């Protein structure tokens, strides 16, 4: 018998075209979210496993004081009764080439004779290296390179290639970067060939506890022992990883949520149009006794059925999308995340599914209310399609936009990156909401203007098109708005992508005033730049300015700074704590360095004055580093250099460094004058050189000369372009995700565009029939509809680009404002805005093509119907 379900289902089945198009919007939204969540979960799972495996199987890791004797510390720790065993490990990273490919070798020296050691490493085959000349390799690395047990592995150390026999393969987690190679040797190897500065070659003590012991309580005890700098428990390490993964994951979800919001505007439009059409039907139901609530129930029931069906399809589609993405990743440049493992959790599926249904119900809320208000007499006297005026309450949208903008500027008050991102997204969402409400107020008059302008030399189709758009301004503006939202989001992502892609270049341009950099990619303490070399390079006739940098690591000891203990920001990664207390230090020539490379100082700081003062007992500190340790200018730190020589320095100013010389930016955290480095910290040896060439001199010649000079050393000469390329490579990785989002967003927007336009055309089937009934040709109908579609989507795209630009600029400005107060947003010291010209042009072209297609296909279908059939009321 009859039930509400049956009634709703029948209605949906009859209006096939409309049902499909509306459902498409839901489907896209759910597919986007689901695929993004799958990727996020997979990525985080992989990274988690990597992090876990990286940590190893120990219960605790004890980081000894670099000044202390790690062996002694290990003995002391082992003496505790709760300890089952202790083994210590030395780790060192060295870059090198294997068959023309550059790798990062993470060389770990292990106490192979230690009984516990075998428990700390998971062997997939073979055994740990027991003696000199043996090596075990990371299993994933070995697999990629085709290494097998028994073969010889040549480790390309800078001090000379070392041939080692492979004795085992170790499971140290999935590779997240195919450039990383895990190499396990026995301790004497490290002691012999590794860097002498323990800051470059830190050791850690792996502790295995007896069963049932509490990690944290033992850890606290050990921390109090002499010679111990830090103890990290396995649980805490895992928690750290999980926490940082969580924030990445929520970022992914937010992007997916935006895709869903785009879908929501489409659903809202679709249901709104349908509502107007079904006035008569609902009037009838009211006339025979349905009340508003019942009518609304019917609408919601339809929406639920639609939502259930299309969310389910969306899940399938999302699954396919993620497979596709992973496949593309795999066949693309091999590198980056290990993509073979897609982790599809029911949790993600449920979230996406519910999001789809929730979005559907939410978007149907207002149309349902309108339907509920339909007068019973609509069944008898269909209201003439008089112009529904654009309600004045839409001005409230402007207020909402302002509120969103304000919130955007305030998002920096959140105290960590995740919350900042969340607030930023929420603010953007609010702005979009306001835009969706407010824009019709502008579009209406715009189309009227267009109509007025088209009075002149425009063909019949053109006049008809513009008349239609302006007469039905509410409908046209709704369509424009839904197109606008999608397009502006696409544009926003493109903007960010473009800016990020160019940021490296831009910063480099501003920061690097040098032409050539002479450097080495290695970390270590081998002096690379001898005094002689420096003199020779300075003597080149092409060289105008040459300066050297000493890059080394120092230890920062815990001090009571002005009565406050140096504490870290809550939620910060404990593993990084190690690095925090052994920052890199750059000893530079305060007179020459600023001329060749610059640092970014916060507002209000006079750079010249800073450089002038640096020869005092001052250091400059990297802002991120300082803020993580809650250090401010004026605070003092004690630095420990070579041979235990230490001295107290005052922090003169904070600065941002993007690249120093050519090294990875994390390395350069402190700046000191070379004089002071030599005097107080025993750092005498130069590691890099920056060269500025004279105007008009031949760069190629200069490079050749320098190459000659540095022959035999581990130095390389790099041009600006090479550095820029390297920056691009570095930037490419984090940009991977936004570009994925961009693609999905483009796809969703274009499909949504077709959707919106098609629904608009379907709704006007009667009109089209009428035009033909009074003598219009198919061609004229096509032209009119196509023109309307193009005008509508152009309006939507133009506004979308404008609004996207506006939001992007505001977002960037607020990030810049935030940067002066808080930890920098994703470590970017300066924000660069770059207009994505190519992407925008491509977008316009795509939009025009797609809207024509989207309009003409339904028109084709509509044209097939005779005028009489079209006029017959559905």
């Amino acid at each position, binding site marked *: 018998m009859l039930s509400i379900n049956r009634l709703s289902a029948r209605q949906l089945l009859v209006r096939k075209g409309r049902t499909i198009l509306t459902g498409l919007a839901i489907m896209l939204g759910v597919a986007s979210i689901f695929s993004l969540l799958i990727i996020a979960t997979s990525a985080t799972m992989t990274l988690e496993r990597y992090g876990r495996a990286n940590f190893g199987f120990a219960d605790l890791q004890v980081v000894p004081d670099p000044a202390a004797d790690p062996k002694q510390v290990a003995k002391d720790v082992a003496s505790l009764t709760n300890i089952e065993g202790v083994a210590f490990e030395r780790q060192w990273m060295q870059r090198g080439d294997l068959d023309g490919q550059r790798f990062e070798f993470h060389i770990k020296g292990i106490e192979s004779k230690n009984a516990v050691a075998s428990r700390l490493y998971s062997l997939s085959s073979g055994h740990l290296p027991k003696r000199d000349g043996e090596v075990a390799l990371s299993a994933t690395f070995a697999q990629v390179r085709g290494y097998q047990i028994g073969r010889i592995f040549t480790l390309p150390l800078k001090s000379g290639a070392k041939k080692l026999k492979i004795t085992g393969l170790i499971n140290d987690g999935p590779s997240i970067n195919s450039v990383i190679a895990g190499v396990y040797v026995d301790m004497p190897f490290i002691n012999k060939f590794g860097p002498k500065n323990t800051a470059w070659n830190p050791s850690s003590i792996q502790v295995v506890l007896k069963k049932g012991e509490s990690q944290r309580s033992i850890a606290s005890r050990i921390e109090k022992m002499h010679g111990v700098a830090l103890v990290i428990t396995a649980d805490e390490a895992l928690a750290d990883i999980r926490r940082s993964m969580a924030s990445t994951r929520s970022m992914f979800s937010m992007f997916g949520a935006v895709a869903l919001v785009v879908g929501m505007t489409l659903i809202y439009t679709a249901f709104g149009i349908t509502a107007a059409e079904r006035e008569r039907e609902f009037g009838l139901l009211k*006339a*025979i*006794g349905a009340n*508003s609530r*019942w009518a609304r129930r019917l609408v919601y029931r339809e929406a639920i059925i639609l939502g259930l069906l299309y969310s389910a399809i969306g899940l399938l589609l999302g699954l396919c999308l993620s497979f596709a993405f992973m496949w593309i990743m795999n066949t693309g440049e091999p590198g980056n995340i290990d993509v073979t493992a897609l982790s599809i959790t029911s949790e993600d599926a449920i979230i996406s599914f519910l999001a789809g249904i929730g979005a559907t119900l939410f978007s149907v809320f207002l149309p349902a209310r309108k339907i509920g208000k339909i007068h019973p007499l609509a069944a*008898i006297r269909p209201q003439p399609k008089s112009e529904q005026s654009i309600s004045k309450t839409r001005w409230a949208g402007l207020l909402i936009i302002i509120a969103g903008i304000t919130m955007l500027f305030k998002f920096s008050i959140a105290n960590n990156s995740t919350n900042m991102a969340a607030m930023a997204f929420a603010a953007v969402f609010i702005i979009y909401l306001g835009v969706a409400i407010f824009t019709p107020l502008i579009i209406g008059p715009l189309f009227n203007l267009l109509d007025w302008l088209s009075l002149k030399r425009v063909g019949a189709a053109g006049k008809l098109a513009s008349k239609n758009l302006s007469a039905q301004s509410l409908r046209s503006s709704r369509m424009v708005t839904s197109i606008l939202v999608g397009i502006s989001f696409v544009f926003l992502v493109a903007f960010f992508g473009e800016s990020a892609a160019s940021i490296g270049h831009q910063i480099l341009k501003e920061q690097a005033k040098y032409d050539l950099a002479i450097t080495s990619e290695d970390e270590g303490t081998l002096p690379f730049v001898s005094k002689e070399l420096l003199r020779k390079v300075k003597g080149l006739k092409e060289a105008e300015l040459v300066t050297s940098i000493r890059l080394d690591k120092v230890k920062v000891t815990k001090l009571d700074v002005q009565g406050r203990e140096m504490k870290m920001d809550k939620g910060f990664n404990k593993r990084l704590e190690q690095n925090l207390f052994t920052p890199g230090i750059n000893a530079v020539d305060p007179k020459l360095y600023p001329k060749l490379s610059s640092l970014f100082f916060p507002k209000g700081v006079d750079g010249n004055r800073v450089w002038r003062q640096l020869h005092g007992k001052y250091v400059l500190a990297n802002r991120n580093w300082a803020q993580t340790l809650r250090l401010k200018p004026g605070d003092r730190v004690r630095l420990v250099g070579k041979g235990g020589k230490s001295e107290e320095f005052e922090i003169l100013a904070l600065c941002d460094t993007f690249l120093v010389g050519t090294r990875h930016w994390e390395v350069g955290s402190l700046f000191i004058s070379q004089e002071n480095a030599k005097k107080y910290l025993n750092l005498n040896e130069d590691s890099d050189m920056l060269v500025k060439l004279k105007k008009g001199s031949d760069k190629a010649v200069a490079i050749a000369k320098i190459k000659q000079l540095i022959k035999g050393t581990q130095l390389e000469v790099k041009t600006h372009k090479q550095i820029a390329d390297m920056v691009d490579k570095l930037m490419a990785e984090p940009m991977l995700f936004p570009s994925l989002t961009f693609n999905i967003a483009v796809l969703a927007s274009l499909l949504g565009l077709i959707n919106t336009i098609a629904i608009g055309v379907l709704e006007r089937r009667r009109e089209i029939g009428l035009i033909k009934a009074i003598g219009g040709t198919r061609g004229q109908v096509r032209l009119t509809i196509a023109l309307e579609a193009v005008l509508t989507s152009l309006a939507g795209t133009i506004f979308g680009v404008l609004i996207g630009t506006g939001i992007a600029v505001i977002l960037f400005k607020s990030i810049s404002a935030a940067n002066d107060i808080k930890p920098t947003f994703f470590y970017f010291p300066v924000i660069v805005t770059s207009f994505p010209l190519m992407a925008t042009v491509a977008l316009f072209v795509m939009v025009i093509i797609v809207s024509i297609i989207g309009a003409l296909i339904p028109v084709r279908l509509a044209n097939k119907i005779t005028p009489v059939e079209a006029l017959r009321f559905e």
Partner: protein
Amino acid sequence: MIMEAIGLIKSYGEGSATVKALDNVTLQIEDGEFVAIMGPSGSGKSTLLHLMGGLDSITSGQVKVNGRDITTLKEAELARFRRKEIGFIFQSYNLVSVLTAEENVALPLLMDGCKESVMRENVGKAINLVGLDGRSHHRPSQLSGGEQQRVAIARAIVNNPSIILADEPTGNLDSVNAEEIMDLLSNLRNKSGQAIVMVTHDPKMAAYADRIIFLKDGRIIDEERLGGKIDQKKLVSKLKGSTN
């Protein structure tokens, strides 16, 4: 007296642009009475019917059904009133095209939240009363005009209302079908005793009524009780012998 309209006024517009569709209309409908409302177009007859059925808002005046004043009812109560006390029949049938005949008839019951068994029983009865057994599984598009109007009638009576309000029920039908429908309505009234108020401009249809109310310019200008005046014998003989 099953329905009473007292001083009904319905006006549209404001100030100088006011249009009075109904101007102080008062009438009573007795239990089981068949009343036809006639008048030229624009006389307000449809408006009167809408007001009586609670389909439109009343500018001033009252409508009482079974003693209850429906002008004070809230929207939900009014809807319930329409469901249970009134059966409305339209000129253009107004069936839901996606539902079968019996599902259309079941609509008011669905809105009432009836159990399925009750629904089936009542729908079956109504369909039987209008003589559509065997056609009840068809959609409106598969039914003729006359059959569709029967469905509409079945829908109107399925809840056993006190009054049936019909707005030009035969307007879209040819004369044969129209006659059938009018016969059906008459029979229904005779069998179940429901009052029927029918708006029509067709005198042949009005002839089925007990009483005719003439409406013009929103006012009742005349009333006529049908039956009993004509000399039947004379009429018959004239017919039989006439050379028309």
